């Protein structure tokens, strides 16, 4: 690791330690910034580990730029370094949607807006691929999408349905008592943006995915 990054980790404030990265709040040329560093993971075979970390860093930077260009709410990309597996972005203050829903600080209207954002993403041929309430920040002017490292390009409704599957189950497992209401809100927003026909197609694929899962 670059010595500068070691210093960032040592001196900055660790915001999260997720499954694939450490996220640190630290300054970047005088601005508050979020450093997302994909550290090597010991459990994975080194070749696979390096391939994944580099691909995801590249993917995250690229998708952030494309979404920002399209006017979708994502943090501004400041810097990316594939060798160091580093992405530096604007710091967006605010709780995660997950925490905000639990604390009653966010509600169906935020989830509905997220549904619109997801439909826009799919309209651009991008799948988020980790669409959960943990990966959305509730900023002052609405939800902001983060953690785009697993995103991939696809215009196929089958792949779009994966985002819906991941999000629906996140509601069922993490927000069980609110899940029905929030799921309806999400679909409302999604359909508003994607239209009835595209939504129907994606929902049909969602049912197909769910019927494929075997429970024995």
């Amino acid at each position, binding site marked *: 690791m670059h010595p500068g990054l070691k210093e960032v980790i040592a001196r900055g404030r660790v915001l999260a330690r997720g499954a694939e990265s450490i996220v640190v709040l630290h300054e970047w040329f005088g601005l508050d910034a979020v450093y997302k560093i994909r550290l090597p*993971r010991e459990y*994975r075979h080194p070749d696979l580990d390096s391939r994944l970390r580099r691909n995801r860093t590249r993917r995250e930077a690229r998708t952030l730029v494309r979404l920002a260009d399209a006017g979708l709410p994502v943090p501004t990309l400041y810097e990316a370094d594939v060798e160091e597996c580093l992405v530096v972005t604007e710091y967006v203050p605010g709780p995660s949607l997950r925490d905000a829903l639990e604390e009653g600080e966010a509600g169906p209207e935020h989830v509905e807006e997220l549904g619109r954002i997801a439909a826009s993403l799919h309209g651009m041929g991008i799948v988020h691929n980790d669409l959960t309430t943990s990966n959305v920040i509730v900023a002052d002017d609405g939800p902001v999408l983060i953690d785009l490292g697993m995103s991939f390009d696809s215009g196929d409704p089958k792949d779009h349905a994966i985002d819906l599957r991941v999000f629906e189950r996140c509601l*069922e*497992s993490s927000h069980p008592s609110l899940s029905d209401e929030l799921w309806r809100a999400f679909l409302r927003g999604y359909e508003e943006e994607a239209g009835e026909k595209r939504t129907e197609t994606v929902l049909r694929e969602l049912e197909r995915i769910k019927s494929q*899962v*075997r429970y024995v």
Partner: protein
Amino acid sequence: MICIGIESTAEKLGVGIVTGDGEVLANEKAQYVPPPGSGIHPSEAAEHHAREIPDLVDRALEKAGVEPDELDLVAYSKGPGLGPCLRVGATAARTISLALRIPLAPVNHCVAHVEIGLLSAEREGLDFGYPTTLYVSGGNTQVIALKEGRYRVFGETLDLPIGNMLDTFARKVGLPHPGGPEIEKLAREADEPTELPYTVHGTDVSFSGLLTAALRAYEEGEPLENVCAGIQETAFAMLTEITERAAAQLNSDGVLLTGGVAANRRLSEMIHTMAEERGVEAHTVPPDLAGDNGAMIAWTGILVHEHGLSIRPEDVPKEATVEQKYRIDEAPVPWRG
């Protein structure tokens, strides 16, 4: 309190006897083995279970040194599972309940895997307050944790269960059933793991692309050892990653690895390494209790009974049912409330 538990959700049949203190007195098993080259036929598995169960109950009682009239409770696997197999276990359990006039405890199979795992961790001196469980077997691949008083699925496979994927690969390349142990053995001889598709969607995984690519690599002449290592390195890293993602979201203080595939040493090593990096404890449930077994049903049956959820003998004929798609979040677990 002495409970006898019957497990019969799929190809394995188990009868276990457990005390209220969590001591496993017996854990007898029998397995239906499908004819070479074919998968499990539910009705044939059920016939096997029906044939074996009287003997297995006798063996368990003998092993435990318990007389039938010393039993206080009988538990059975209510689901999820294969209908014909579940019904054999339920019928046997009903018969025991009515003959001995003892209550009957219906148990969710997946809850039982977690509960026996936690008991096993506790006996090793680990005290998990809020663990994330990776449950991997021939028929299930799930990341499970407690939320709002129920166990819930935080991640799972979108297509093939891991054990099924391993068995299918093994069958197609001519390795004996079950495939997991054979693949593990061969993988140790590899010089380099074959590169295979790594498919993670948030906290979900998908194995069908990996299976197709692994079979193709083998057909194209890649050494079987390398393909086996590729399957293990890729599939197990995917599972470890989704387990960690769920654990990170939940702020879990421990990781539990259970199910038949937990016996794989490489998977267990990855889970332990990941836990160590996160600074939490991990526990791999030993094979006797990790694979489908009767003791896990007996132990969970005791918890069910102690919390007033067992069925009185007089209500058994109408209330003791099975449910093929019994979801884990439909099972009340007041002892975790």
